[in-house]
């Protein structure tokens, strides 16, 4: 993975740029000391680091606008940052860029239970949005694994998902309005508490645009009444194919579980060693959760167990109480931590059609053997969003490169199977150079035209999403103009 060479003229202009930012912002809102910039040199994709030119931490939409106006005027690239939990390098800076972090924008601006909305500043964490409404019996549905730390700004930028999207959708399905600042500092209001906005679907376009179209400073989100209850059932199978078939049959039967999670043997073993959730020793395991009243849950789980039994499960257990439910989820929720105990890992995020599950899992097993690196699979099976975890040792020279090569092959496999490179993490820099496997040049051209409209100078997070060679003419036009 490469990043463009920093623009020497911007590096040279640092004192002036920082002085202008300081003049426009409160004293502690601009960071430019090298030792402090280190904290912003990467996000959760820690394999790549680069300290930015400066960091700004605005506390209002007006301050965001001021920062963007100055950077626009100076021709300095801006990299927006939520909480820095991106696994795709969405917030990775370049040395000639200014980080715009929204961490100080954390207010709840409005809650309205009759209209079922909450309006928050986007530096607020995902989980604390639910925290603000749960006393009234409501919740915010998208629940990425990083929800304790990740910011709504990043959720919107990456169109984040989570374990419960099969029923509730992803961020874009739960976003009703935004205040967004364009690269030239213009503030726009889109949508609101009403269900749809006039004109083109700007919200749909902005959500998932990876901070390349504008900086969203506050968001109106849909909140939902909490279900009466939820209960998981765990089922083990002696092959991934059978587990895949069970997933398909459950969906076809008309039950819509709130989550269907899948783990394969390497992942089961690792989590057992780590968390001791009491999982069966089997090839593939499913956790299926349904919601409703006690009786509704009984009825749905009855149907699901009936289907499972047709596939000869090696284990089938329903949570009898809260404790057992927590134990069933414990292993799944600690899966990433468990893998981290074993060593370094890279987490992939491709989506495939559920029908291709057995084929793709078999091929991943074969590729893992070819490359000599173990791969564990844990993912949201109901929607086909896979998370193969490739284990490697970062201290062994060459292993990161081998891991990245295997990762690229697996993602290409996802595309060939009819799926896509990323289901919920985003392209960032991590999958940027694979875009050509999913999209023809004219498909990417159509997407880049959208950026041309919102950010004609290509200053906002310019080196993400599109392969550098593909975005080069546009980025270089900017550099030449400067």
């Amino acid at each position, binding site marked *: 993975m490469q990043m463009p060479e920093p623009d020497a003229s911007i590096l040279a202009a640092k004192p002036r740029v920082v002085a202008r930012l300081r003049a426009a912002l409160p004293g502690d809102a601009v960071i430019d000391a090298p030792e402090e910039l280190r904290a912003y040199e990467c996000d959760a994709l820690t394999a790549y680091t680069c300290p930015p030119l400066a960091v700004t931490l605005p506390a209002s939409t007006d301050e965001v606008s001021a920062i963007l106006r100055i950077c626009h005027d100076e021709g300095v690239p801006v990299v927006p940052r939520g909480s820095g939990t991106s696994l795709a390098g969405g917030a990775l800076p370049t040395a000639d860029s200014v980080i715009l972090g929204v961490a100080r924008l954390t207010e709840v601006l409005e809650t309205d239970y009759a209209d079922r909305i909450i309006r928050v500043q986007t530096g607020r964490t995902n989980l604390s949005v639910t925290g603000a409404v749960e006393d009234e019996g409501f919740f915010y549905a998208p629940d990425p694994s990083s929800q304790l730390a990740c910011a709504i700004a990043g959720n919107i930028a990456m169109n984040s998902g989570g374990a419960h999207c099969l029923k509730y959708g992803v961020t874009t399905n739960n976003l009703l309005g935004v205040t967004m600042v364009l690269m030239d500092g213009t503030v726009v209001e889109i949508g609101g508490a009403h269900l749809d906005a006039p*004109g*083109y679907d700007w919200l749909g376009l902005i959500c998932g645009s990876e901070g390349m179209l504008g900086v969203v400073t506050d968001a109106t989100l849909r909140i939902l009444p909490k279900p009466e209850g939820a209960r998981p059932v765990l089922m083990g199978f002696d092959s991934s194919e059978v587990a895949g078939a069970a997933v398909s049959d459950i969906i076809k039967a*008309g039950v819509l579980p709130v989550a269907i999670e899948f783990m394969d043997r390497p992942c089961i073993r690792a989590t057992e060693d780590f968390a001791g959730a009491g999982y069966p020793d089997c090839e593939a395991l499913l956790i299926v959760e349904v919601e409703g009243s006690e009786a*509704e849950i009984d009825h749905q789980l009855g149907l699901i167990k009936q289907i499972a039994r047709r596939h000869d499960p090696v284990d089938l257990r329903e949570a009898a109480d809260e404790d057992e439910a927590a134990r069933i989820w414990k292993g799944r929720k600690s899966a990433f931590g468990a893998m981290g105990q074993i060593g370094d890992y890279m987490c992939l995020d491709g989506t495939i059609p559920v029908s291709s599950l057995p084929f793709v899992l078999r091929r991943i097993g074969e590729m893992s053997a070819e490359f000599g690196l173990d791969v564990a699979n844990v993912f949201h099976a109901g929607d086909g969003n896979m998370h193969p975890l490739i284990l490697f040792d970062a201290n062994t020279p060459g292993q990161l490169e081998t891991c990245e090569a295997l990762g690229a092959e697996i993602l290409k496999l996802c595309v060939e199977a009819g799926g*896509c490179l990323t289901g*919920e993490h985003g*392209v960032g820099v991590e999958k940027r150079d694979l875009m050509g496997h*999913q999209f023809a040049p*004219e498909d990417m051209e159509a997407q880049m*035209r959208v950026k041309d409209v919102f950010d004609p100078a290509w200053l906002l997070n310019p080196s993400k999403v599109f392969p550098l060679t593909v975005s080069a003419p546009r980025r270089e036009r900017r550099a030449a103009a400067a």
Partner: protein
Amino acid sequence: MLAPASEAEMAEAVAAATGPLRVTGGGTRGLGAGGAAAVSTGGLRGVELYEPGALTIVVRAGTPVAEVEEALAAEGQRLPFEPMDHRALTGAEGVPTIGGVVAANASGPRRVQAGACRDSLIGVRFVDGTGTVVKNGGRVMKNVTGFDLVKLMAGSWGTLGVLTEVAFKVLPAPAASATLEIGGLEPGRAVVALSAALGSPYEVSAAAHLTEAGRTLVRIEGFEEQVAYRAERLADLLGRFGAVSVDREGVAATWADVRDAAPLAGRPGDVWRVSVRPTDGPRAWAALGEPPAVIDWGGGLIWALLPEGTDARAALAGLPGHATLVRASAAVRARLGTFHPEAPTLARLAAELRAKFDPRGILNPGLMER
């Protein structure tokens, strides 16, 4: 009328066009730009791929909606967003197509639970104004690869490209359903009741109020046992608003009428579609002069029948939201405009975006601009 039989022919037809094109599906939504040569998606027909076990269907844009719904029903599934049929309202006689549904982002009462058309749409292929075929999204329901042009195409009324193929996430059709009804509420009180129902954990899938009939309606769907249980709980919850009756027989017909704004069909006057914050619904209705109306989406969507030539937007000034003129004479349309004006910055972005996707300005010129 041009009706290319393949995507490649569609691309050729658009590339070869020397003047404006009126992009149409079945011509039932009543909003095409008149005068120009028509190019129809009617030749692009058929289900490309349907995987019930993956809850996904891929369809050519000119496929009749009924054909898509039949294919899904055969597997016990359905389009989640309950697209309306505009024919009752517009009096058009064509056959509604699935591409037209997407172009209009047509979404019915289940919008409050399952989202709009754009929320179920997971992939598109289209021909842009230069005759280039573009694809975006795909056939999987979780996909954040690249910018989301899928949603951009939904509700873009053929102004950015001619849709050739659309893919949806679908849902199982429930085994049972029921309508709960309270009579005699005025809209203000009705919307309070609808908010209470929508704020309950009983997964209300539609919530509407018919002003003339004074009917306040709530729908629940699910397994038989589930519907029975939820009907009972909701009847308890809503009891404070009046006597609650439960209907299990006429559910489909009741909600088809709400979906299509049937109470307003065939009557003189203009029909407006007003989108507001749900609890602002009653205030908006009053500001419009308490017209005959179908108030859907828990108060957030008002279909209003207004005396010919009424400027609904002027009447609603100050309320956040927007108003679309759905049925009116050409003269009224010319005077008031069909679409709600956007804020200046957004209008500028829209014009620039349009110029990028259709540099010659040939696709439904003028449409959506006012």
